[in-house]
């Protein structure tokens, strides 16, 4: 007779029966549970996806960046932008008379075009002031676009002024210098206004401990130096480049004075094509230097020898 042994095995209880041994699929339940099946809000991270226009401009324009109260550096930058903005607005008004603007093309009325032009310039300044005050990239972008729109000219013309109390129009050199100064101010406005945003971000990041800055004085000092040096150099170089059509006859004069005389009197060379030709010549030389990798060699030399 077999002895019945005690066993912990309880499989005999289940033999022949179907036993559900796992919980039902969570996904299946989520699909049929009715209310509350939506994805919880906290599960979705906030991502700033740049829109088409923003992506053209290099990334998302973050409208609600919470900047902390500006520090002295940012406040100084803001004051500088205000000054440049005022000068830029005034110069834009001077160098972009109503004639030749897109408004003149659309309306055919010089009076109306002038009024629209003034409105655009005022709007550009207003947006710029507000954007810098609020440190909001959207308004600054709008302001920059309006300035560019204001300066766009859709007519063949030499430089003409809408307001000329000093008689600058009589001197071609002064006239082109005025336009160069205008262009430098435009670039400085774009750069400084983006500088306000960059340094505000940096300042906020420093104060929220996201970033640590070593030797902030040196970093800021370098920026301040660049603010002075770069526009001056750009001004000088641009004047030289734009004077290429005048410099070329001087150089040619060394070899052939007759040809130099012809060049000086050439209508083509003194026209916009002359300016373009001179510019092209200069940039071909610069391009050649780049192609020869000269800048890299200069950089190498600076790296190895020190400043």
């Amino acid at each position, binding site marked *: 007779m077999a002895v019945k042994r005690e066993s912990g095995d309880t499989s005999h209880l289940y033999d022949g029966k179907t036993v559900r041994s796992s919980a039902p699929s969570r996904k299946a339940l989520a699909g049929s549970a009715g209310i509350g099946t939506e994805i919880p809000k906290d599960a979705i991270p906030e991502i700033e996806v740049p829109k088409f226009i923003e992506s053209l401009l290099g990334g998302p324009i973050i409208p609600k960046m919470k900047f902390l109260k500006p520090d002295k550096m940012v406040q100084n930058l803001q004051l500088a932008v205000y000054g440049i903005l005022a000068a830029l607005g005034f110069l834009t008004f001077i160098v972009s008379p109503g004639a030749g603007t897109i408004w003149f093309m659309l309306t055919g009325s010089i009076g109306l075009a002038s009024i629209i032009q003034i409105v655009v310039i005022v709007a550009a300044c207003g947006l710029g002031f507000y954007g810098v005050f609020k440190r909001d990239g959207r308004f600054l972008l709008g302001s920059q676009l309006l300035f560019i729109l204001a300066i766009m000219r859709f007519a063949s013309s030499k430089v003409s002024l809408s307001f000329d109390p000093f008689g600058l129009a009589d001197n071609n050199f002064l006239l082109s210098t005025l336009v160069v100064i205008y262009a*430098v101010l435009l670039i400085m406005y774009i750069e400084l206004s983006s500088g306000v945003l960059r340094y505000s971000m940096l300042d906020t990041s420093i104060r929220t401990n996201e970033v640590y800055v070593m030797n902030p004085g040196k970093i800021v000092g370098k920026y301040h130096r660049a603010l002075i040096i770069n526009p001056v150099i750009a001004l000088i170089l*641009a004047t030289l480049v734009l004077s290429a059509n005048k410099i070329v006859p001087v150089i040619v004069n060394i070899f052939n004075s007759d040809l130099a005389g012809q060049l000086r009197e050439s209508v083509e060379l003194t026209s*916009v094509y002359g300016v373009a030709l001179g510019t092209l010549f200069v940039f071909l030389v610069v391009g050649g230097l780049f192609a020869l990798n000269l800048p890299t060699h200069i950089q190498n030399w600076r790296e190895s020898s020190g400043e």
Partner: protein
Amino acid sequence: MLGSLAIAMYLLGLTLRNSQLVTIAVVIFVFLTWAALFGGHADVSASGRRSEEWTGEEGVALGSVSAMRKMSSARIFEDGELNVTLRMQNHSGLAKILEVRDRVPEVMRIKEGSNYILMELGPRRETFIEYTVECPLRGFYSLGPVAVRIQDPFGLFHKEKELHVYNDFLVFPKMEDLKETFVKSRVPKIFTGAVNIRQPGPGSEFYSLREYFEGDSFRAINWSAYARSGKLMVNERERDAVSDVIIIVDSRAVSETGPVSRNALVYSTRAAASLAKYFLGRRDSVGVITYGDEVVSVDRDTGKKQLYVILTKLAGAVAKGNTPLQVVVNRIMPHINKGSPIIFLSNLEDDPTIVNALRDFRARDFDVTVLSPSSLEFEFDAKRLNRTGYEVLKTERDVLISELRGLGVNIMDWEPDMLLSTALAGARGF
């Protein structure tokens, strides 16, 4: 943007023969060229290649910047802190304004200092960046690469380089100190040890009383019992011995259901680490098996070294795959001593073979303890599961647990806020 604007103005000016537009365009070109030439980005502008394409020594401005990193430890426990020192060197004779970001794994938190620095690094100088990271989750991690960026003052051009300096480190699951696990083997090994097994023999814990036989030591006589019964009675003690303990950790993809820091796998690995430490401290032989997309096992062994081997395996356990428990049981069954305690850590989800697999263990008289961290609680707490769904799933889970309990498995529905020792006691019916 400025470049595009300049080109557009230049072309429009030429087309319309408008010298004003051409002049403005030329000024912008000059400004950009100057910035490119003398802003430390000549190498980028020279070839027209994008900065990301630079490798090795090609990047002149950043080629002379190097980084080294030192860590306070290569192995830490969860919630531990790691001190990192990053040494940045500028080998060139030119001062540079650098943005340095040492990449830290996303789950880590910077506790002190900063891994993102903006600095002016002087010519042929070096600087040390120190920061402390808090490591809340177990795993294999790497610090690095070090991203370095240099840009001109106006931010017109920038160049980035990743310095491929990596430091690997391990975060072990944190452990709970256990006083008692209530897990005892019925099958001793030949060596005596500190663990009581359920057999009488040489030991320290009381087991039972029995009548005196010739040869018994007089010291074992229980005089109180003798006074009560009139017969000579001796104390029997539980035999202290070394036993094998097998810990099975479920690391299938489903085990990570719930928030990153609160899910079944996190709890299971912490429990496995604590149990391994406890048993190894008692000179038991401990083996660990983790299964997910494959079955990974640490052979049974004793000692402190074994603890680190187990901790390393647990640190690397990744929620992946869906291997059924039955496969694991079939594979390990021939290799483990009959009657050894088996501790199974799983949320018991999405595996129809669990009941059969545990029944196989019980059929061979293994002492099975199941601790089941409830994914339902994690998900419900994180508001990812509504009340109705929670109730339905909870009922299903309770049915399954009752079923397993019916097989003679010591099982505990481990709720998130319950201590491991409490859960173990609960599994044993205390």
